[in-house]
């Protein structure tokens, strides 16, 4: 639709539309933030650009699908299992591929992660074929309506769980012993090691945690959209956009970045063209590089 083509009726409803887009963005932003936090934690602690992040997200969605649809496992139990399996998968990737590359430069680990990404994605494609699957959810189908605004119960649930997980991650990073080790490693890995922090364990735990969050995001969004093997690519590119936006390594940045991206996408697809919805992330990346190359929240010394 061309910019000048809005007719009178559409103009009249544009405020409601704007509010509806805003609401959609807030709901979506929660899951985006979840994705971004996982990625930014892994980068901040391990200096690894985790290209498998999107595949772990897809993995979460597929576990959800496999448990709920053919096996008939309870929806909420499946969600917990998907996240748990995501954590295990993350730990396995770290132990198998990264633990031996701890002193390697960032380009080396990136190549390994790209290799793992390509292998994982095509294994998914081989195992599940390219056909899209949908996952049944136990929520009432009719949306919650409030004035001119409406939101589905499922999305509301997704937002609630995502917020809970984000809050949990903040608690973990800022208030627990593990979080203390995490922050110490983030500030200065060598000093942290000298102070008795087991860097190898911190690495494995971080990667497992980040992957768990990605799998949770996948398991949450799988029932909202559909499940396809290439869903990981899109998720990964969005997670990268979020993390660049917020500044690599910043948890707060990733949270805010998730919501900014969701708003940009909602407004972009609503007012420019739905074909460019997925381009908004990249456009934001390029804009942020022009204005502030290190991201909005580049806090070198702090993790949160």
């Amino acid at each position, binding site marked *: 639709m061309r910019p000048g083509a809005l007719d009178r009726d559409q103009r009249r409803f544009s405020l409601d539309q704007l509010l509806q887009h805003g609401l959609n963005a807030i709901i979506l932003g929660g899951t985006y933030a979840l994705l971004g936090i996982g990625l930014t934690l892994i*980068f901040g602690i391990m200096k690894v650009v985790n290209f498998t992040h999107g595949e772990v997200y897809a993995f979460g969605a597929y576990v959800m699908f496999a448990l709920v649809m053919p096996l008939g496992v309870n929806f909420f139990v499946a969600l917990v299992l998907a996240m748990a399996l995501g954590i295990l998968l993350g730990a396995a990737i770290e132990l198998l591929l990264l633990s031996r590359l701890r002193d390697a430069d960032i380009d080396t680990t990136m*190549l390994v992660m790209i290799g793992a990404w390509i292998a994982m994605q095509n*294994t998914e494609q*081989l195992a599940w074929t390219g056909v899209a699957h949908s996952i049944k959810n136990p929520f009432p189908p009719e949306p919650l309506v409030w004035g001119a605004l409406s939101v589905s119960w499922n999305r509301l649930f997704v937002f609630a769980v995502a917020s809970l997980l984000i809050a949990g991650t903040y608690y973990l990073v800022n208030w627990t012993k593990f979080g203390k080790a995490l922050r110490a490693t983030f500030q200065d890995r060598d000093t942290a090691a000298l102070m008795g922090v087991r860097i190898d364990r911190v690495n494995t735990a971080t990667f497992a945690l980040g992957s768990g969050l990605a799998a949770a995001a996948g398991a949450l969004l799988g029932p909202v959209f559909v499940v396809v093997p290439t869903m990981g690519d899109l998720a990964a590119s969005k997670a*990268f956009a979020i993390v660049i936006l917020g500044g690599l390594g910043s948890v707060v940045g990733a949270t805010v970045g998730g919501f900014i991206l969701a708003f940009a996408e909602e407004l972009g697809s609503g007012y420019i063209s739905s*074909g460019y919805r*997925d381009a908004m*992330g990249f456009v934001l990346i390029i804009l942020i*590089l022009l204005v502030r190359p290190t991201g909005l929240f580049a806090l070198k010394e702090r993790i949160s």
Partner: protein
Amino acid sequence: MTRWLPHLFVLFLASVPLWMTDNYILHILITTGIFIIAAMSLNLLLGYTGQLSLGHVAFFGIGAYASALLSLGFEAHIAPGLLVKVLPKPVWFAMLGGIASAAVCGYAIGKLAFRVRGAYFVIVSISFAEVVRLVALNWVELTQGPMALNNIPALKLGAAGLELSFLKKPMVYTLVLAVAVLSYVLIRRLVQSRAGRAMIALRENESLATSVGIDVTAYLVLATVVASAIAGAAGALYAHYVRIVDPDIFLFIYTVTMVIMVVTGGKGTLAGPIVGGVLFGLLPESLRAMAMPPEVQWIAYGVLMVLVVYFLPRGIVPAINERWGAGEATASPLRNLVVAAKARS
């Protein structure tokens, strides 16, 4: 003796169309050659400047699209109310246009992306290729979107009476070989000069390079422009060979294919991308011969990438050089000069 080996090798390659009649094998050689050209250009960035540029397929695709569009002619709105109409141009001109378009994009993205390094740069380079893919997919008026650009003409040179048509495979093969040799020569000149030393210097130690007056960003941009122009040439060759171009040309997997060629062969060596390119140009064919689905090929690429990083981190060519004691550095003519200078003093 070893000095003439490369020339003999090129002569041998040039003779292939004279005795090879199997069109399928020629097809494989052509596509492998096109990928090798692209991989050589990527090596300039990846190997010599040390920047992990993961958007390289964008330049390949821009070269292909620009060349195809110029040869077909097009009508599109560049901005609202600004209609640009281009009549079909001769293919040689279109190909040069493709190369120029890729180079211009290389300049722009180089200026933008090299404000950052490391992980940021990598993500920016990937994003750039994705944006270009989405534009190719959605700007239907210009690119036909997923319907693809069809009936792209093949290259014809010369005037009526004495006309060379690059429609048949032996001719396309010769053209690809010529472009590959030219690209190789250009890249070799570059890396064995002041510019190449500046690129290697910034890869080895950026602050030290700056301290002796090397304008690091300028050389990164130069490397990007040359690399994208050559990748654009490869894309133009591709477009006028397969004669159909769709947005899938921008898929990340093709960048991965180029990266794996360079890394396996040996980044930062002149021969590396050629060795890696031959290997990974022929591997998919052998997998296909075993009736494997394409996913298996990509899985194999992914696993191989991990294995190469673990077991052959510097690639095949440096490993062979070490084994046989003939490193590229020692093979340079400078060695003789130094020996002569020592004898003088």
